[in-house]
């Protein structure tokens, strides 16, 4: 029996996580159009409301958190079906399943990369867009914090949907139908936090519930996604 291969060049768990994230970011930089469409969509949807509703400041201020959150939800759906499909088509996903590390870590890397390319830029742009709705400085801060806690959940829950609909025709629409209902709690607590601060109420409860959802999603969705990917490779 020959000896087991030595471990001198073995990649650590964090090395693998870093590799997957940097790979996805590098690919996105070479295909910028994909990332930009999501962001431009977000800017367009949010900007259409003040134009459509008219310049009544009170009304705009009232609907601002809802509009920004719904737009963020929809634009993160746009990029979901690309999360695994390119890797599925060119066979990289097969090789990922054969990686001698936990598949959940690889999936987590892909989720984080997806968030950096969709959730993070949305969060950074949100205060600028919020100005169109005459939001107060405090409300803008809470909006950014709620997006910081909420958008990773969208990427994580979205990953499960994307993995389940992998290789199906019309998977893009299906994944939205599957994932959007599951994102309703995120929407409620996200907008709730901003509304609370504008009406002078306590925001901690909303944000801690969002945080709790984030921890739950972080614990379970990479694992569930990995299982779904294994099933879709059969």
């Amino acid at each position, binding site marked *: 029996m020959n000896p087991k291969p030595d471990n001198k060049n073995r990649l650590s768990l964090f090395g693998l996580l870093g590799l997957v994230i940097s790979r996805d970011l590098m690919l996105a930089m070479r295909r910028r159009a994909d990332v930009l469409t999501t962001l431009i969509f977000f800017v367009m949807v949010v900007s259409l409301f003040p134009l459509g509703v008219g310049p009544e400041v009170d009304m705009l201020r009232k609907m601002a958190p809802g509009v920004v959150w719904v737009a963020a939800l929809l634009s993160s759906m746009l990029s979901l079906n690309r999360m695994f499909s390119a890797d599925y088509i060119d*066979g990289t996903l097969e*090789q990922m*399943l*054969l990686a001698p590390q*936990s598949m959940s870590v690889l999936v987590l890397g892909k989720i984080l990369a997806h968030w950096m390319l969709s959730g993070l830029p949305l969060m950074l742009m949100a205060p600028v867009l919020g100005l169109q709705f005459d939001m107060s400085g405090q409300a803008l801060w809470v909006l950014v914090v709620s997006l910081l806690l909420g958008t990773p959940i969208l990427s994580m829950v979205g990953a499960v949907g994307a993995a389940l609909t992998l290789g199906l025709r019309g998977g893009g629409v299906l994944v939205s139908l599957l994932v959007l209902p599951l994102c309703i709690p995120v929407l409620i607590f996200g907008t709730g936090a901003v509304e609370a601060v504008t009406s002078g109420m306590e925001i901690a409860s909303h944000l801690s519930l969002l945080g709790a959802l984030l921890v739950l999603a972080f614990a379970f969705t990479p694992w569930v996604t990995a299982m779904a990917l294994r099933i879709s490779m059969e």
Partner: protein
Amino acid sequence: MLEICNLACTRGDHQLFSGLSFSLAAGELLQVQGENGKGKTSLLRTLCGFITPAAGEIRWRGQDIRELDEEYYAEMVYLGHLNAIKDELNALENLRISAGLAGCEVSDKEAIEALRHMGLRGRETLPVKVLSQGQRRRVALARLLVGNAPLWILDEPLTALDVGAVGLMQELIGTHLAKDGMVVFTTHQPLEVAGVELRRLTLT
């Protein structure tokens, strides 16, 4: 090392094979033969753990591969019909990433050496989308050179390769076997490795 006991595989309602048993020891070369649709690829994918066998067991070093999981994957390389390389990246980046996914860190120097050995001198930093089919296959095959896994599972490794590259593959398999490696492969082209007895498994 690799033992297959009484393996059966079904796709849909159709039974591809059943009661399949064989074993592979260090330094052995096994060609899986059979007409189109007889289950060659399915057998190789079952060996990779993608497909759950309908019956039977696959054992590596005496243990079921399902139990070994990551330990087994550290000791095998699979090369399928799909090259698993990205058009947007260059050959060097592709090789480093695929080696990284397989769990081993490769320096630029080692990667360039492997690509040059595969006859891609001067193409190392070109985006893969400008390479030909055969050259893409060579990029994918370069992965075999940088890893140190004893078990190679190759599904049609010779597609799109020219005569020179086929010779190179034979040489590569020869050296791997001489180092106590194992190779299971399918091909419709003749593949002779000097000094090694080729075992054949025909699926009917």
